[in-house]
């Protein structure tokens, strides 16, 4: 065997051994006692490193919880169950973790919203529709129905109903906010799961346009705002709920002609949720 190879092997092997030995000694000498509770907390966390808590990952969250920087209920994915586990490990009160879920604030599906005269035949994703022509509906503010939020959801918690609108399944939704980012029209928001009433519209159109464009648009009449004692305010032709002052009992739901403000359980009740279709996002073939 060529002597050069042996020298090369010896050099690299020697260097490797020296550094490995130095690191092994350093590891013993410079060992830092870590709080054993951090590892325990880390074990009960979901471990998906989604970042919904605002920390760099589950381990970082564990470190912060043990140090008392965050409440045990700070993990929105784990919910109350994980909060209780962490509280047991740390021997403190869990605090109540309010479940946060995504809410789709648009009711203008294929049936309610007026269609454009022209047909959209591009890729069936909201982001392209929004960039190219604004999709098939007249409304410039509402849901495009392309299902970008469905695609974005890693927990399989959003599906389109047969009216072409996304519906959130509360039990599966973790409030991570991926759909909020994915929606180019910003109609998805994160809310505590116990909120029942929403203004299901984001349209700032004037009353006439709003009425023409969609059957369930907020036309900006302001009736709900006048009766609500500050619970609802009007912003540029759109009713916006002020959650700290909001009281659903003061809202005259029957006075809202378009039912833009209504109970969540009624908002999408008439429609069935479709199964998630894998192949539906390819552009329809052109017939010449």
């Amino acid at each position, binding site marked *: 065997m060529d002597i*050069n190879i042996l*020298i*090369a092997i010896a*050099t*690299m092997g020697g*260097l*490797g051994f020296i*550094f*490995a030995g*130095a*690191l092994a000694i*350093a*590891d013993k000498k*410079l*060992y*830092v006692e870590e709080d054993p509770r951090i590892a325990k907390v880390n074990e009960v966390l979901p471990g998906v490193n989604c970042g919904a808590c605002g920390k*760099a990952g589950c381990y970082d969250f564990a470190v912060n919880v043990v140090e008392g920087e965050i409440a045990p209920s700070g993990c929105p994915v784990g919910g109350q169950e994980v909060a209780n586990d962490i509280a047991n490990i740390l021997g403190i009160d869990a605090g109540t973790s309010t479940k946060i879920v995504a809410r789709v604030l648009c009711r203008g599906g294929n049936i309610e919203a007026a269609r454009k005269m022209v047909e959209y035949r591009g890729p069936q994703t909201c982001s392209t529709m929004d960039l190219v022509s604004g999709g098939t509906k007249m409304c410039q503010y509402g849901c495009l129905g392309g299902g970008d939020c469905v695609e974005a959801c890693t927990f399989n918690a959003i599906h389109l109903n047969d009216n072409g609108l996304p519906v959130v399944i509360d039990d599966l939704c973790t409030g991570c906010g991926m759909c909020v980012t994915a929606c180019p029209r910003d109609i998805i928001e994160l809310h505590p799961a116990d909120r029942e009433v929403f203004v299901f519209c984001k349209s700032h159109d004037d009353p006439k346009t709003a009425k023409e464009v969609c059957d369930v648009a907020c036309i900006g009449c302001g009736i709900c705002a006048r009766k609500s004692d500050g619970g609802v305010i009007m912003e540029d032709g759109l009713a916006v709920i002020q959650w700290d002052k909001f009281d659903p009992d003061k809202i005259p739901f029957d006075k809202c002609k378009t039912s833009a403000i209504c109970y969540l359980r009624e908002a999408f009740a008439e429609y069935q949720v479709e199964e998630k279709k894998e192949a539906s996002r390819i552009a329809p073939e052109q017939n010449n």
Partner: protein
Amino acid sequence: MELILIFLSAALVNNFVLAYFLGICPFVGVSNKLSSAVPMGLATTFVMVITAIVTWLIYHLILVPYEVEYLQYVSFILVIASLVQFVEMFVRKVSQPLYRALGIFLPLITTNCSILGLALFMVLKEYSFVEGIFYGVGAGAGFTLAITAMAGIREELELADVPKSFRGAPITMVVAGLLALAFMGFAGMITV
């Protein structure tokens, strides 16, 4: 004088990030806040100086005498990886606050190509031991300067009315390009 020229050359004229395009990953990834960009720059400088010292010793005391210079790539990678690991342990033991401030950045430096680039350039330019140290300090200062400037600009950009499609990564690339263009103004001033 020669030493100062080497320092200035590495820091400004042949800036590792903006002229050689080395270490782009942390330059783009860790430059969104000044408070994290500065520690990253300092940590990189620190590792660069130590790397310059140790790789010079290994090259001239081991690789050259045994005529195995071709092993420089492999051995330098080994040296850098072990060094960063060691520095991380040391910092953790000595100063917890500093360890937490550096956080993920220290391990990131292991795979930073500007460190390996520094070690290889030093061999290429046949620097002496002292020159090598100055080269390391200069390269580190240049990296810190670049990443700090970038972070400062990006913090201001947060307030600017950037067109929607340019927000985030695209405008960062544009800024990085302009910054590199600005540093091209130094080109050819010093050839060391």
